[in-house]
């Protein structure tokens, strides 16, 4: 199963993680690979921690990534990146959105949000890319396109034909939001 590539998406409910993993899976299927993806619905939608596993290659069995075999941790939030860091391979890569979202205990002043997470992650995994997703999404014209910005960044480090990404976005993004999302995708892609 050594040819199977494992991407773990992480973030907070409501950030558009599931749509991003849908696009990623579609791209890999169009590239002719076997794809499996897995996530938990339900409770986690209420602002909780959310993960989505995407695996692709010649033949994929488990939809859950074997623990410790994550190739790329693709996180939409810094604390959530830190939470899932132990699941990464030693030579793995982190692509993380430079964003802090306060969990309830921090919002209530009962706990502090850990400092310097981006630096800490970068030290442990030198290939880490930190993306200013919200700034780029605002530049694209809509703060809700952060997930597309981040997908753009991810697309740069994956070995898949560029056109497949554009085709997948064309297929999966509502027509009236397509231009703004294509713009966001490019900005993310150029940020890596």
């Amino acid at each position, binding site marked *: 199963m050594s040819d199977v590539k494992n991407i773990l998406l992480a973030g907070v409910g409501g950030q558009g993680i599931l749509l991003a993993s849908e696009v990623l899976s579609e791209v890999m*299927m169009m590239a002719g690979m076997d794809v499996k993806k897995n996530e938990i619905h339900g409770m986690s939608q209420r602002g909780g921690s959310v993960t989505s596993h995407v695996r692709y290659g010649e033949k994929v069995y488990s939809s859950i990534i074997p623990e410790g075999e994550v190739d790329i941790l693709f996180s939409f939030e810094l604390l959530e990146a830190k939470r899932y860091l*132990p699941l990464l391979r030693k030579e793995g890569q982190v692509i993380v959105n430079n964003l802090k979202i306060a969990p309830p205990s921090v919002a209530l002043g009962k706990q502090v949000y850990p400092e310097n997470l981006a630096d800490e992650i970068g030290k442990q995994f030198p290939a880490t890319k930190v993306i200013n997703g919200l700034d780029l999404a605002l530049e694209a014209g809509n703060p809700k396109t952060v997930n597309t910005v981040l997908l753009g960044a991810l697309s740069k480090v994956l070995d898949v034909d560029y056109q497949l990404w554009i085709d997948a976005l064309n297929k999966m993004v509502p027509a009236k939001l397509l231009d703004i999302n294509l713009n966001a995708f490019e900005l993310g892609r150029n940020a890596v």
Partner: protein
Amino acid sequence: MQKVILSGNEAIARGAYEAGVLVASAYPGTPSTEILENTTQYKEIDASWAPNEKVALEVGIGACFGGARSLVTMKHVGVNVAADPLFTLSYTGVRGGLVLVVADDPELHSSQNEQDSRNYAKFAKVPMFEPADSQEALDFTKLAFDAGEKFDTPMFLRSTTRISHSKSIVTLGERRTDLPTPSLERNAAKLVMLPGNARKRHYDVEQRLIDMEEWSCTQPFNRIEKGAGKVGVITAGVAYQYVKEAMPDADVLKIGLVYPLPKQLIRDFAANYETLYVVEELDPYIEEQVRAMGINVVGKDKLPICGELTPGRVQKALFGKDVPTEDNSPELPPRPPNMCPGCPHRGVFMELNRAKAYVTGDIGCYTLGFLPPLSAMDTCVCMGASIGNATGISKVISEEEQRKVVAVIGDSTFLHTGINGLMDMVYNQSASTVIILDNRITAMTGRQENPTSGYMLNEQETYRVDMEQLCRAVGVEHVKVIDPYNIKLTRKIIREEMARPETSVIITSRPCMLVPRDNMDKRMPLYVDHDKCTGCKACLRLGCPAITWDEENKKSNIDKIICVGCKVCQQTCGFDAFIEYGE
């Protein structure tokens, strides 16, 4: 043939469509909900939400008796509710095929227990298929209809969270159009289960299981995959995928029909190995039956019964491999789910907390009222249990303590199985208080319509249950309808009704704020005037995700992007610091 990526749930809905299903019924429940939702894209299927799983199955049985193929879906605990018709349906058998999809939730991602539904197959003598990915979910759904009609039996299709909510590539097929036209057809000996008839049918049930077991031994859904030939593994469902990851060289007997088990096939396979593993999630269901055949296996002596399996957990349990987990260290703040900003339940739980109520809770978004800072739930057992629990506990405590007991239940859960509890409460004259949080939707599972929403699954408008009249009709004299965004009123009514020495019901009337059609009034977000905020933290008792504590300035802040302007926080502030934008 067209290839698409489908979740297990989408694939089951597609399988039902291709199998020629005409009727589908369900009550929502994670992880099964999306199956019925996905049947609505196929216009040939009459799909509807039932008020509970028992009704859903009874509707399916009716369609089956009429000669149509019908699909009924529910989560594992839903089968407890539907068990009554299920066990007798096993005796009547079917006319058109009936497949009951049950989605188990190992690891309790969104459930109150971890029951293993394969035991129901054995208990009710209803055969069960178990797919291992989306393609099998589609194929086995079709197979289940064919096999059920061939052997005159209802069929189970068992999924688990990781099958229902995983996506994989599926090849689509065509819908069957050669099925007989449904019609009325009397067949009392088979369909009227009086003792004289049922006694005879029981023999048919037993014979059917013997026949099916023999048939199953030669069917391709039970298959052997050759590896290095040294160790053998018997497995089924999602556990098969983990075996392929964790033990790539093993010979595998993958079982597709998990009840009745293909015993001869198992015997022949087992004879080849000195070490034979049974890898399955939850109960030692296959293992016990294999051991009863006199075959020794490695199974739950090593593998966990509690929780779901993963590739790593299998390797750890069987081979002692060191497997990493996510970072659970205490300095990383956890991120539990929370009620949404503007949720009409929030103020009610804050007031229940302040009134020091003993809250018998129920199943829904409002179960999150258990979490701090609201911390106002003391029990939660199953759908509808809150009301009976309140009645029962009130029987055994002092009068003073009785005044603290409040049952809290949502609209959908109340109509599911709570109404019976209310009848009992009035009939047997319990002095408890019931709060029905009527947000006009089944919210927790992703906002499904129900008899209080005024809409059907197909979005068509329909009759709406009048909750107040319903409570009065069962005999509750004291029914109050309140706006839960009005905190002062909510506090007053909750305290009055708790003190009342008779059964009383409070109905909150705000819709779920995630349902746009019920939230047409424009509301502006609020901000905190830091000149007025004294840092008293009274607003933090709401636990609203839009309100954050600014440690540096010792003041509260509002995230205006997620604030929906419900103004509940404004009413918790003694210093008028919460101000609406544009005011």
